[in-house]
């Protein structure tokens, strides 16, 4: 949901800088048990409006650690920030899983001392199996989510339960569907419907996906990543491919908006916290990651931003009414964790790109 696809121009410079920073090995991974964390100052980089507005004060009150929060608007920007120099001054960066694996590959992510983060116990055990960082060696998951069918209950004849309801809309929904505008996500409904991986690099499969999407685009209202909630509320759209959190936001404004997970399954994205090797405030950083995973801190995220979190303790402590009100809140973490995650497809991105252009050219 926070992947608008914007590549900062500095990304190119960042790639060059990686070569330099990768050479400088990080500090020791050992934590000093006698360190006085209240003398440390922590700097984190995350997305704006992705945390409690009182986080810095609350954390300082709880631990005595002064917390600076800086922002990045996109994964690319956050990535560029921490790779642009040997020591960016940032201790912890929040990134999506596919960017975390690159940070690990480049040797910039510190290993996490799991003993210092006892609240990892709160997480769904499945998060330890993710390919981008097995066993949570280098990241502590912060939030996760999926995409599915965001729709108007009162404007569809039957409750949608398949991607086909979006791609081959019923007569009342023709011209009233929206597809996602972000290339890799545009492809997901057709890939899932046809039973292909969302990371397929097979050109024949992708051509088939393209044909389905081309037809779906002609029967759609628009490609839309950001304002489909408004279109649903206005009744301009009746079924949209939407993010769980954003669909919840729309449902909070108009209870006729609902969310359905297609039976063919969908995707999963995970945003995690990464401690950088360059950090000199390692003890405070661990305290921070542990603090974030506390049940009440993660329930804040669910109740206020309506995102899903991979924190079982938090999800289970929330009242049932909340889940009834927001169908895109998913308590069954195991089913969510099974979903495939978007990965880098290497040079096959050019095939995606060509087909994406063909779909839109009509």
């Amino acid at each position, binding site marked *: 949901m926070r992947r608008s696809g914007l590549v900062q121009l500095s990304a190119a410079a960042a790639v060059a800088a990686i070569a330099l920073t990768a050479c400088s090995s990080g500090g020791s991974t050992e934590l000093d048990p006698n360190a006085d964390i209240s003398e440390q100052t922590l700097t984190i980089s995350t997305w704006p409006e992705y945390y409690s507005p009182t986080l810095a004060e609350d954390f300082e009150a709880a631990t005595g650690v002064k917390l600076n929060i800086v922002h990045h608007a996109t994964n690319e920007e956050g990535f560029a920030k921490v790779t642009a120099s040997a020591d960016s001054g940032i201790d912890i960066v929040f990134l999506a899983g596919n960017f975390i694996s690159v940070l690990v590959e480049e040797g910039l992510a510190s290993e996490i001392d799991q003993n210092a983060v006892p609240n990892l116990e709160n997480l769904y055990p499945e998060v330890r199996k993710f390919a981008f960082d097995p066993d949570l060696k280098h990241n502590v998951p912060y939030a996760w989510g999926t995409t599915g069918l965001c729709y108007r209950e009162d404007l569809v004849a039957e409750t949608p339960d398949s991607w086909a309801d979006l791609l081959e809309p019923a007569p009342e929904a023709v011209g009233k569907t929206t597809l996602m505008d972000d290339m890799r996500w545009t492809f997901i409904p057709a890939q899932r419907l046809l039973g292909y991986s969302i990371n397929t690099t097979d050109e024949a499969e992708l051509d088939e996906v393209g044909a389905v999407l081309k037809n779906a685009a002609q029967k759609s*209202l628009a490609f839309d990543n950001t304002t489909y909630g408004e279109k649903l509320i206005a*009744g301009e759209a009746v079924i949209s491919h939407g993010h769980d959190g954003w669909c919840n936001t729309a449902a909070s404004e108009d209870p006729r908006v609902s969310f359905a997970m297609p039976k063919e399954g969908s995707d999963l994205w995970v945003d995690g916290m990464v401690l950088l090797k360059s950090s000199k405030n390692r003890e405070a950083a661990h305290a921070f990651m542990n603090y974030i995973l506390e049940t009440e801190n993660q329930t804040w995220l669910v109740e206020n931003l309506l995102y899903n979190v991979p924190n079982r303790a938090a999800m289970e402590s929330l009242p049932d009414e909340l889940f009834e009100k927001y169908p895109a809140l998913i308590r069954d973490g195991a089913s969510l964790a099974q979903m495939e995650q978007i990965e880098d497809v290497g040079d096959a*991105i050019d095939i995606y790109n060509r087909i994406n252009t063909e779909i839109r050219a009509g």
Partner: protein
Amino acid sequence: MTKPVRSYRSRQTRAVGAILTLGIPGLFLLLFVAVPLGVVLVSAFFKRGRIGGFKPEFTLENFAELTRPVYAQVLGSSLLMSATVTLICLVVAYAAVWAMRTLTPRGRIIALVAILIPFWTSFLIRAYAWMLLLGDAGTINGALQLFGVIETPLRMLYSPEAVILVLVYLYLPLMILPLAASAEGLDSSLGDAARNLGASPWRSFRTVDLPLTLPGALTGAVLVFVPSMSNFVVPDLIGGGRVLLIGNVIQDQFLVARNWPLGSVLALVLLLLLVLLLVAQSMVIRRIQGGSK
């Protein structure tokens, strides 16, 4: 003694003046025109980098990509759409300028200011205003439904026609201003003479006024055509991403597909087309002015 010193000083002052007057614009052009164009030109010949940028590996493959029919199709539809926008602007601007000629000088100034006022508002806000006007649940559909003209809303937004409408709205002032400037110098007695000699209003416009305002019209046409051709915000917002112009494809290469080299190749094609257009325009203007002398 004083004389050489003064001349030395004045030479120095002149040198400083020259550095300021040539250097600053020169630096500006270097930073904001030459360097970006250089990046585009260079990256067109290299392989793409993992997260944008390019790898220092020479290749001509990016140009081979151009042979895919989809790019010719997009280029063709972009040319057609920009030409349509330009033509509509031309007709509307002539009507507007001719209407303005009937005004007092003071009225004309007020009209010109009124034309310019929208420029003071962010284009995005104006685009969203159009979305509010044209949407299924928008103002126009709401009014038509209220008065019982229609029952179900008309689909206006997210169509090629809506994109054309908003592009015309956006660039119309760029056509009106040069046209108004060239109509300003028009000797109205020429038109009167033509009509005295029995020419119909249309004929006097076509044979007298039109040729005399053609340079202004051509300048306006280029000013409208060039940005229409490369606009990607209007097709995205007003076309709902379903109207694909060459500007969108280029933007996608840089921001979505992270394929700078292909984006660069497409940008160069667009640039070449627009340069050819400018050359053609200046040749036509020179011929007109040469002919009238």
